[in-house]
């Protein structure tokens, strides 16, 4: 399965696995289904770029964000 942990470059977020609090916390940082983000480094920690902001996320979090190739 393709997640933020094992992908690189521009990807689109498909699904976020986790409880309500977790999903909302990621949404506050700009990580929500449908969003296109750029993975800059696989780390750990994984570094991604969401719009104009860089965000560092731990491996455990990255594993729960399922992505697909951005066309």
């Amino acid at each position: 399965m393709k997640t933020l942990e094992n992908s690189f470059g521009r990807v689109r977020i498909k699904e976020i696995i986790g409880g309500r609090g977790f999903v909302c916390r990621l949404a506050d940082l700009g990580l929500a289904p449908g969003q296109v983000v750029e993975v800059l480094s696989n780390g750990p920690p994984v570094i991604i770029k969401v719009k104009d902001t860089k965000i560092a996320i731990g491996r455990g979090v990255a594993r729960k964000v399922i992505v697909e190739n951005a066309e």
Partner: protein
Amino acid sequence: MQNKIYLVAQPNSGKTTLFNLLAGENCYVANWPGKTVEVFQAKIQHHGKEILLVDLPGINSFKTLGREEELTKEFILKEEEGVAVIILNGESLYRSLYFAIQVLEMKSRAILAINKSDYLDKKGVHVNLQVLKDRLGVEVVQISALKGSGINQLMDRIMDILEGRVKTKKLKIDYGALEQYIVRVEQILGDRSLAIKAVEGEEEILALLTEAQRSEVEKIKKEISQKFANPEEIIAVHRYKFVEELLSSSVKEVRVAKASFEERLDNLFFSKLGGVLSILILFSTLFIALSVNTGFPLNLIMRSIGYHAFAEILEEYSLAGMISMLFGSLSHFLDQNFPDSVLKDLLTNGIIAGIGAVATFFPLVLIINFFVSLIEDSGLMTRIAISMDRFFAIFGLTGKSVFPFGVNLACNVPGVMTSRILESDGERLRVALASPFVICQARLLVIILLAVFFLTPPLLQSGVIVSIYLLSTLIFLLATKFYGKFFREEKSELLLEMPPYHFPSLRIAWWITWTRSKSFIFKIAQFLLFFAIFAWLLEYFGIAELIGAIIARAFSPFGLEDPRIGFALLMGFFAKELIISSLAVSFGTADLVQISSQLSLTIPQATALIIFIAFYTPCAATISAIYSELRNYKLLLFSIALQLMIAYSLAFLSFIFLSFL
């Protein structure tokens, strides 16, 4: 009616800078009823009108259950008359707007201030304020809190709202497929923002309803959950869509910024070299901070290369040296000029010693807070945290824990305090509770002295000290994992936004340093004074010697039953430096060579003693600091028991190991 405005923002948006600019010197910390969060307030004037300015804690989101989030949310929902000043971070408009629209859904009396306009100018970003204003239904102003621009305009608009000259309205966002359900819940609750929150699944909202209302809402929620797996996700997606449309119609980038020095610095931090670079930065900062405070370790270096006079000046004129000299001469003065009495003894040996202890901590707390705020403000903190994350993740901590750990190497008191920079409450308390296991500078001096005089082989001296350091680091890390059991959080995950680098503002760094240090010192001062008087009572009534004898009994398996050692260890519980001075008093000499020959300890005995001293409870001040973070007596007592137990077992193991050799 009082004019009230309050600042709402995410961290890194420059809220503190704006507050500082508006409040000037008139600020004070307000104790919020029933809350442990500190809220800054100030009375300010604009065109002769008095306004109460409230600085709500910076929060990332309204969903997490931290005490800061709770307070901010409560404030926004309940304060009907005040105006919410929502500060947007110009560096990350997208995320700030996502935050802002959530406030605007709850609150109509609000104004948006897009901060860091200087940064936007530099990057060639143009924001069409009129478009934002039309779409959001509130006033929008562009400011730079750092440069002080746009502030007057902001205040004028705020006055317009306060005095009813402009009308604002609550924001309404279309939630697509969920809309029909939201409308139905709204009919029950009578308020759209509450309805959205209920659909998002916020339990607190449901608690406010009557039985009948709640069952109605629960019914609708059930319908939703049958159709949608994750309603809160749908809400988030719609909010982002709204923000995206908003930004594409209002923001134009004129120039495209090219990969810069900052990008290259970031890449360096994310590479394998990042960890090395971070450690270099941290240790050189620590080295400077310590040398200013006590002269150590710079004095040792100067001495070893032959500059004895310079080393002495360093020791004498270091901050801690000057303060202890001042309090020493104060007690001496009282001792000389007043007749002997219980009161004089209490004053000189109890109270002044206690206040002196608080005072000697103050410069170190101040210096460390200053460096931490510089590193925080410059954007370096996140990079260092990221480069250290790989290592700390092994123990279920985030890379940010390297800061409290590093400060703990200097002193556990500011170390415990630095744990506040950690994002989650669980990680913060785990690190605070485990802090005493990190060997601080005061303990280092005591164990160096004892090692030098009690252990003759030089190889053994350094061997013992190095193993103590390695072992203490390991125990600290394992302890943070262990304490996780109490907070249902054995693993904390990094989730950090990276602010752009900038040169830290000294004015702001100083302000943060001063307010943080001041409130902290007042908090621990009462505990320290209590401990100082308690220790004095024990000593004055001869109870201390009794306890010393009991402690010595516990050490009889090592052949250390001398009550004078037991007494020194008891005093060491209050402050580690007291071990040396109480040994000196009870042996009647300050010469450690003589003390050592009188005790004539074997190598296993001396090593066991040194190891016990290194690992047991560091000092009363650290206990006070941990309590002010933890607010839980039981857990605090448990942690002290754990420290004593670990110290005793390690001493015992080393004793047996060395006896067999």
